[in-house]
């Protein structure tokens, strides 16, 4: 049996699913339907993990990542660390259409997006500003830094590398791997995820 066509997405973001499905059902291509679905989540800021105005970095800036992939040609358009442009999946699609590259990042990705006609605007909102302030007031906890000084578990930056004791350098490869690889990020949860 076949259940095609189909739209599936992670999390109960039903508005995005419906938007993509409605588009697909009305004859819009699968590619465009996916962009419509993901754009819907960017506009609605689905659970704070998609789109502008949430999950700022250590400096308080929200940046966006997106990717789109064609299963027939394996063509990909992807953008990472995109700044000041809200429609990340649209920029990823523009990379797919208007370059022969796979992934653009950072400030240069923003320049490309502006060339392609996307609007430059702040991704900050009162919510992201408050998230940033709360994090600062909580001594920058939780924190993804490690092996730096001051202690990232209790202090904000700026940070500098913590010189490891000489004996650490003389350990075996597997021990050094344990030193530099945390087994989990306890701060990743239902409301804070990739």
């Amino acid at each position, binding site marked *: 049996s076949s259940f095609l066509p189909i739209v599936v997405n*992670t999390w109960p973001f039903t508005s995005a699913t419906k938007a993509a499905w409605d588009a697909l059902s009305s004859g819009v291509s699968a590619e465009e339907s996916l962009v419509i679905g993901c754009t819907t989540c960017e506009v609605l800021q689905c659970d704070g993990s998609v789109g502008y105005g949430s999950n700022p970095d250590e400096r308080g800036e929200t940046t966006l990542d997106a990717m789109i992939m064609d*299963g*027939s040609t394996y063509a990909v358009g992807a953008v990472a660390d995109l700044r000041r442009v809200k429609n990340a999946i649209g920029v990823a699609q523009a990379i797919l259409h208007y370059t022969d590259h796979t992934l653009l990042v950072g400030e240069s990705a923003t320049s490309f997006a502006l060339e392609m006609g996307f609007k430059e605007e702040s991704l900050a909102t009162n919510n992201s500003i408050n998230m940033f302030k709360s994090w600062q007031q909580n001594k920058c906890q939780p*924190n993804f830094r490690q092996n730096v000084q001051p202690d990232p578990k209790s202090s904000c930056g700026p940070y500098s590398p913590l010189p490891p004791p000489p004996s650490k350098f003389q350990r075996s490869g597997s021990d050094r791997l344990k030193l530099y690889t945390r087994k989990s990020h306890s701060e*990743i949860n239902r409301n804070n*995820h*990739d």
Partner: protein
Amino acid sequence: TIGMIVIDASGHVWAGTSTNGANHKVPGRVGDSPVMGAGAYASNTGGGAAATGDGDIMMRFLPSLRAVIEMERGVSPDKAAQIAMAPIIQHYPQFSGALVAVNITGHQGASCHGFSSFAYSLASTQYTTVKVINVPC
């Protein structure tokens, strides 16, 4: 993060993601979402898959690529998702993440680990409205 898979009536598979990443990340940090094979993957011969969770951990194992490869070999989406998640769980038993997989006949499945709950959404001719499927982790 949203990870989405769309397959049209002729079996053309598309996959994509969009995210603002982890809260209070180190500036410049990029997770798994824009990395093909990690955040999502698409193949007209296998289907599509999309991952969510701790991208710093998950991207090291390319779980979406793994799931699609398994489906190309005829493995069911549920089993493919489990196989893709297994090495991550083995090496990082405390991580949180999930993966959804859809094969080229529109059958779907998922696997999750570490979350208190995980759910995914789907729309197809099988249902009259958007369906939310809860997965025990």
